[in-house]
């Protein structure tokens, strides 16, 4: 009798478990990648769906607005003046410019809208939300630096240095000991009623500081709890909001004047060079027009080709050529279709560049093989008994196909078409070739006006150096993915609802 080698059996079972584990790991890694990708995008993109504005009381100056032409008024000036009036202590051109730089260049839009809607408010003082610049917006969202505020626990003595800009800070002790006692570190900002100072460090045995905001020289002693230590994780030179701007924004925030609202602008505006004003409306409309052209062309062509190949084509060389062709076209890189569009539609036929019409033509050719293959599968799934029954009662072959087979295959065809549509909606590369990659601020008005599409907008924004565009890009990606998921969900619903097993 043969000896039972239990050790070998155990080894083989271990190999079995290992192999199974590899498979599970591969799937887990893929799932993990997808999870990281989606979470990363959502975390990056969510802030862009909110915008920050400040509530200002603005006097609509009759000298700046012509009641007969309220659109042309100098609202920018009014808003800047109103904003400066909020900070009377800010003096000097540099500081005032730093202050008004916190407002967006489109900050006056809301006021303009109000005056245009109701010119009777000219001469009155109104409260309007004024959009903040992208940098201010990002600072307030905590994306530029994290900021901690701690109350000062000891008494702070401030002495002005003669003949210099600086100040010396002392507690009960001086120098490094004062630094320890007061809980300060270089770069920290000391804020009190009457001014704000930034600690520069210990020099010649004294703890020195420079003013961040205009500082009242009369203040010499601040009691414990009367002052704050504001510290930023990112040094001033590495962020786009200076210490003084940060303190102004803080002040507005504490007064409750900062408003964080859902950014409808993101869905209503076209592209812009200013991150806070940029929206995806233009790209969305462009995408819609392009995909509309693509589907209007590809759907009838695809179904007709599928019907011919599946139901009528004789088995011969010609049909084989068409079939091999379609399979090959399905695997041709999409950028090649862009070259085709450039050489044929733009150069040969002279169609306009950047137009949704041309984009739609190119995408139609791109998704045509997908639709043909899906439609053929759907037609093939209809059992021949249906055709035979129709032929049996005297229908012609075409009557059988168009009146019986096609309606039964339609849900399958629609599923394939929606998936093709999703592919067209997410396609970027071929559209770069035909010039849909230009900066276009206007919302496209027709099939031949210059336009861009959502994926190309993502590409364009991702290329920009401003940090604020990064979150705009992620937000545009979220919109893109939501549309794609909706399309795919519709396809799955159709498949589940109308799928028939014969």
């Amino acid at each position, binding site marked *: 009798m043969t000896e039972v080698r239990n050790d070998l059996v155990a080894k083989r079972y271990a190999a079995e478990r290992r*192999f199974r584990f590899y498979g599970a790991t591969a*799937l887990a890694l*893929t799932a993990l990648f997808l999870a990281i990708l989606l979470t990363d995008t959502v975390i990056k993109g969510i802030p862009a769906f909110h915008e920050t504005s400040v509530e200002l009381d603005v006097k609509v100056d009759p000298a700046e607005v012509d009641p007969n032409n309220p659109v042309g008024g100098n609202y920018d000036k009014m808003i800047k003046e109103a904003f400066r009036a909020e900070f009377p202590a800010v003096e000097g051109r540099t500081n005032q410019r730093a202050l008004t730089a916190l407002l967006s260049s489109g900050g006056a839009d809301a006021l303009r809208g109000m005056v245009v809607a109701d010119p009777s408010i000219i001469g009155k003082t109104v409260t309007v939300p004024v959009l903040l610049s992208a940098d201010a917006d990002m600072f307030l969202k905590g994306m530029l630096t994290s900021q901690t505020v701690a109350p000062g626990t000891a008494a702070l003595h401030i002495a002005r240095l003669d003949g210099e800009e600086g100040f010396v800070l002392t507690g009960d002790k001086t120098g490094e000991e004062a630094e320890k006692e007061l809980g300060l570190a270089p770069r920290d900002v000391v804020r009190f009623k009457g001014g704000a100072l930034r600690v520069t460090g210990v020099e010649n045995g004294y703890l020195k500081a420079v003013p961040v905001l205009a500082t009242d020289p009369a203040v010499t002693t601040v009691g414990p709890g009367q002052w704050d230590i504001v510290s930023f994780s990112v040094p001033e030179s590495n962020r786009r909001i200076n210490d003084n701007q940060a303190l102004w924004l803080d002040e507005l925030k504490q007064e409750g004047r900062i408003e964080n609202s859902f950014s409808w602008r993101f869905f209503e505006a076209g592209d812009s060079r200013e991150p806070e004003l940029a929206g995806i409306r233009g790209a969305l409309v462009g995408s819609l027009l392009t995909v509309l052209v693509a589907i209007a062309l590809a759907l009838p*062509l695809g179904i*007709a080709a599928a019907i011919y190949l599946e139901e009528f084509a004789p088995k011969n060389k010609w049909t084989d050529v068409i079939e091999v062709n379609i399979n090959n076209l399905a695997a041709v890189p999409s950028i*090649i279709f862009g070259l*085709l569009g450039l050489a044929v539609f733009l150069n040969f036929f002279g169609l306009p560049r950047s137009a949704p019409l041309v984009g739609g033509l190119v995408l139609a050719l791109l998704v045509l093989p997908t639709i043909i293959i899906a439609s053929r599968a759907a037609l093939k799934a209809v059992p021949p008994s249906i055709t035979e029954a129709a032929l049996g009662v005297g229908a012609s072959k075409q009557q059988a196909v168009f009146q019986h087979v096609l309606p039964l295959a339609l849900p399958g065809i629609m599923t394939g078409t929606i998936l093709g549509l999703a592919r067209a909606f997410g*396609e970027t590369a071929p559209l770069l070739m035909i010039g849909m990659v230009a900066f276009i601020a206007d919302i496209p008005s027709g099939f031949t006006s210059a336009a861009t599409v959502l994926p190309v907008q993502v590409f364009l924004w991702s290329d920009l150096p401003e940090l604020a565009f*990064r979150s705009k890009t992620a937000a545009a990606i979220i919109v893109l993915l939501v549309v794609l998921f909706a399309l*795919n969900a519709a396809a799955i619903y159709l498949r589940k609802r109308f799928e028939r097993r014969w």
Partner: protein
Amino acid sequence: MFLWTVLLIVLMAAIAYWAGRARAAGLAATGGARLHSLPSYHGLFAAAGAMIGGLALAIAGALIVGAQSAFMPVAAVIGGAIGAAPLYSMSSPDFRARNSFERIVLVVLICCSAVAILTTIGIVFSVLFESVIFFRSVSPIEFLFGTHWSPTGTPPSFGLIPLLAGTLLITAIAIVVAGPLGLLSAIYMAEYATPRLRGALKPILEILAGIPTVVLGFFAALTVAPLIRGSGEAMGLSVASESALAAGLVMGMMIVPLISSLSDDIINAVPQSLRDGSYAMGATKSETIKKVVLPAALPGIVSAFMLAISRAVGETMIVVMAAGLAANLTANPLAAVTTITVQIATLLVGDQEFDSPKTLSAFALGFVLFFFTLILNYIALRIVQKYREQYD
């Protein structure tokens, strides 16, 4: 004008349909004869005539006078009338309107399926035509075997080798990532997962497959590349900020669903009797998979890999966003390389001058890319046809 033309053609067709149908119905009612075809087929036949005539004259008009001309809608109406009239007058009880109409439909269907061929011809000619002009100024030998690529340099040089090397490097990284992941996932899904687990896992791969490449490119450039750079520097390696590794890794993840879904289908197509035979000999499940199922599915899996390679070679957005523009001839995955698709995209975005070799070289690259992927796809198809085991 375009819209009016289309509307008028449709209108003419509708009128022809009603007229044709009414005439046929009238023949049946007054003459008392039995019609060969239903009255609606007489109508459809006339409508087809109107449509063909209208379209033909409108297109001819557009070519002669120009597409924006007011002549187009007029041409549509005249053409419609000319096209419909003879067909309308053909109506008689014996006239085989259905057969005639069906013949027209068949021709239309054939034309539609010929669009696929036209597309291929269009692609071949568009890249070939511009490439020929390009090769008048740059010799094909220099293009194919040159080791230096700088189309904007003075003098410009067009050597394909660094681009090819970069493309293959990134593709190789992608396949190294996607091959094992895709194949093992497919094996797990096909052989181990319960139907319920399969139902839960399949959407993960489907979602990944549906994510546009521009999104993956953004992720590669802004998340993966800094991560690789950071961890590389922590280990004391110098990593380019646009490393081939980042682009290759993300491209690999993009291809996982492709390999997995193709392999899944192929593994499922291996007949159960082969597995049962193996189990009967005492083999474990993994031994059966490795020794029986995979060898049987091998041609299909090889063709899946070929398609994956062709997809990676032709992928544009991930590399445009995450790989560099510097045409380095290197095999170091941490260095920046550029690919054929990146160069096509950069050369053709922005100003295009169709008389400079710089712009035309993009078409020569497109030519190389098209034939490279075409050959891969063709081999993939042939392998399946030639080596597929016939089981039943």
